[in-house]
């Protein structure tokens, strides 16, 4: 039998009848998704009519294609992680959520679940090795997570990251009472990306087509979010290597972007901008000028500051060759988004989106330097994209619609929505049941893939370089814990 017959190629945000979702036997399923070139975006399990079904969504990034396939398994199946390490977290979550056992998984530890202090960290019985425990409450104002280092002197041999402290049951809440405000709070620093993925999935399931103008405004907001966070994060990296002027200047440069976001949407993070069926706020001529002025000011300041920063020997010596994750390793462990592109991986979920002639920006070295400098390149690119989008906005309808829609989901459907947030892909997968209720809501953010990348990046580095490695990834705790 031709394996390809049982794979569904689909478009981003395309509504699919659940009856049309293909099934293949487990052997062909694993043969299909295990090859090195296949990039798995999400792998999850659900119980359907008393049977366990594995769903796999994967991408052929080069040809800009998305695929879906499924298979049925029993109470256990042979783990795929040993052949494809990047699946390790997906399989841990499958076991945690459904009890289906991936036989032979190398470390089937909890993902989000916590029962007292039962988490078993890797231990070392070497007398030269000491442990450093950090968290869940950290020194700064950040979210909670626990880091356990095994160190030999100053050198980190191993880092294990325990998460789940932020688990709020977002997916269950979205099933019971879907709302855009909840989607905005999945992860506050990715407000636009998360609410956009939610809105698009729901619109697709409700057969709502939004106007070109609204599509453009959404993308402008998405790029503004990217700029704001990247500017702030370069500043944060500067702060961590004691280059205070960089931290100060870029910290307040970020303010310019988010204050413009406030003028647009009423919130510095863009909360309230997105609505189910479009956007709540229009970009009129005054707003357009404000955004253009902001872009000019931000780019000018960032250019000057970043140039000075990267010309400074003490900064460079802290960033170069620190926290290295190469291209091969990145693919093996399934890094996504900005962190993957910094290692030379060429994929970006914006190719599945409404951007025209989108070109992917990458760096090669995969160290803190690359992850920081790539942010700078992305800031410049976002500014350019926003200008283009603003120009296109002139050719569209003169106003947005103020209509309010109510959720009217089509029964027995599947939709997959992927958005490139500033960290990387934000992928929402929604399935409705026969009564039009949401039966499954699966969210996967870039942090789900990338936390393990951070753990590998700090190996053989000084423990004092952990903060700067951490900032260069700047991963989300709540985006992982949900």
């Amino acid at each position, binding site marked *: 039998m031709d394996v390809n017959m049982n794979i569904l190629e689909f478009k981003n945000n395309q509504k699919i009848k659940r009856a049309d979702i293909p099934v293949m036997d487990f052997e062909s399923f694993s043969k299909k998704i295990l090859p090195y070139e296949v990039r798995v975006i999400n792998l999850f399990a659900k119980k359907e009519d008393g049977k366990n079904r594995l769903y796999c969504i994967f991408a052929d990034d080069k040809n800009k294609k998305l695929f879906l396939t499924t298979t049925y398994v029993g109470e256990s199946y042979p783990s795929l992680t040993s052949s494809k390490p990047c699946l390790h977290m997906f399989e841990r979550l499958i076991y945690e959520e459904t009890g289906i056992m991936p036989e032979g998984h190398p470390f089937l530890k909890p993902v*989000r679940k*916590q029962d007292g202090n039962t988490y078993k960290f890797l231990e070392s019985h070497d007398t030269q090795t000491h442990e450093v425990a950090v968290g*869940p*409450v950290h*020194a*700064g*104002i*950040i*979210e*909670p997570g626990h880091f356990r280092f095994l160190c030999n002197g100053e050198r980190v041999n191993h880092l294990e990251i325990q998460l*789940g*402290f*932020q*688990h*709020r*049951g977002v997916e*269950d*809440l979205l099933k019971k*009472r879907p*709302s855009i*405000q*909840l989607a905005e*709070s*999945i*992860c*506050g*620093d990715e*407000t636009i990306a998360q609410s956009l993925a939610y809105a698009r999935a729901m619109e697709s399931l409700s057969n709502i087509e939004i106007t070109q103008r609204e599509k453009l405004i959404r993308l402008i907001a998405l790029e503004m979010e990217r700029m704001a966070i990247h500017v702030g994060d370069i500043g944060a990296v500067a702060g961590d290597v004691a*280059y205070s*002027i960089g931290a*100060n*200047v870029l*910290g*307040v440069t970020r*303010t310019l972007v988010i*204050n413009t976001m*406030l*003028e*647009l*949407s*009423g*919130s*510095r*993070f863009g*909360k*309230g901008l997105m609505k189910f069926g479009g956007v*709540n706020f229009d970009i009129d001529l005054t707003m357009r000028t404000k955004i253009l002025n902001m872009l000019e000011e931000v780019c000018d*300041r960032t250019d*000057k*500051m970043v*140039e*000075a920063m990267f*010309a*400074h020997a003490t900064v460079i010596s802290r960033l170069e060759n620190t926290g290295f994750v190469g291209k091969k390793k990145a693919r093996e462990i399934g890094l996504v988004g900005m962190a993957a592109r910094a290692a030379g991986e060429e994929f970006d979920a914006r190719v599945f989106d409404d951007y025209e002639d989108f070109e992917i920006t990458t760096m090669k070295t995969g160290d803190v330097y690359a992850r920081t400098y790539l942010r700078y390149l992305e800031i410049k690119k976002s500014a350019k994209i926003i200008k283009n989008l603003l120009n296109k906005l002139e050719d569209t309808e003169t106003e947005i619609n*103020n209509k*309010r829609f109510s959720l009217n989901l089509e029964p027995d459907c599947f939709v997959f929505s992927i958005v490139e947030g500033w960290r990387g892909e934000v992928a929402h997968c929604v399935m409705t049941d026969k009564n039009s209720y949401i039966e499954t809501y699966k969210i996967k953010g870039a942090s789900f893939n990338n936390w393990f990348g951070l753990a590998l990046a700090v190996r053989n580095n000084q423990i004092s370089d952990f903060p700067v490695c951490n900032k260069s990834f700047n991963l*989300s*705790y*709540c985006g992982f*814990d949900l």
Partner: protein
Amino acid sequence: MLETLKTLGLQKNQLIKDIRTATPKDGFRGLPSIDINADENWQECMSVCPTGALKIADGEASIDLGKCTLCGECARYCKNDGIKFSKFHKLGAVNREDLIVNGELNPIKCKEEIKKFFGKSLKLRQVSAGGCNSCEMELNACSNANFDMGRYGVDFVASPRHADGVVITGPVTKNMAKALEDTYFACAEPRIVIVVGACAISGGVFQDSEEIDRSFFERHKPDLYIPGCPAHPLTIINAILDFIGAK
């Protein structure tokens, strides 16, 4: 080095000189008010609220700022301006019931003993217990070169041992309940509790979640409530300054 010195010019005019009179940019959604006499479908307005913050019945109307995410959804549903969001941003309160308002908010009254202890120096330990990182980022912004809360002696510190109290964000997840309690007790007495954001005050959009555990607040009553989703830095700083009686 020379390049770095040149960038000093970029530092100018960043500081907000007077935090007490500064206002957020236009467009900010602040204190809401309800005109009960407006011709609206109030049932529908209440039903669109994601957190159930609106109460309109028998000619009485109120919004619970402890629940309100200031999303403005109700105002957009109103056809005749029945609900409006003003630009007013000083939304803090020392009593939970003071947050249930309609267009007017009682100013924070500073207690003498608070002023005596903390009036010139307040060190806080922040605990994110399920916060989505937007309130956390706004709390960070309070100390940046724009807002510079440190000039009033108010700072965030790394250790609870150095802190006069905790600032809590997020709805308090089950998985963070113990760590929050431990951090609270690690602070020296007298210790204060400040809750920032709709999630921390009431559970916000997560109030119906089975994964949260808000029993902390049954044992320890917050001393200061700062609403928002997220709370704006000017809201946060002004509330804290009013609370400690700073000018």
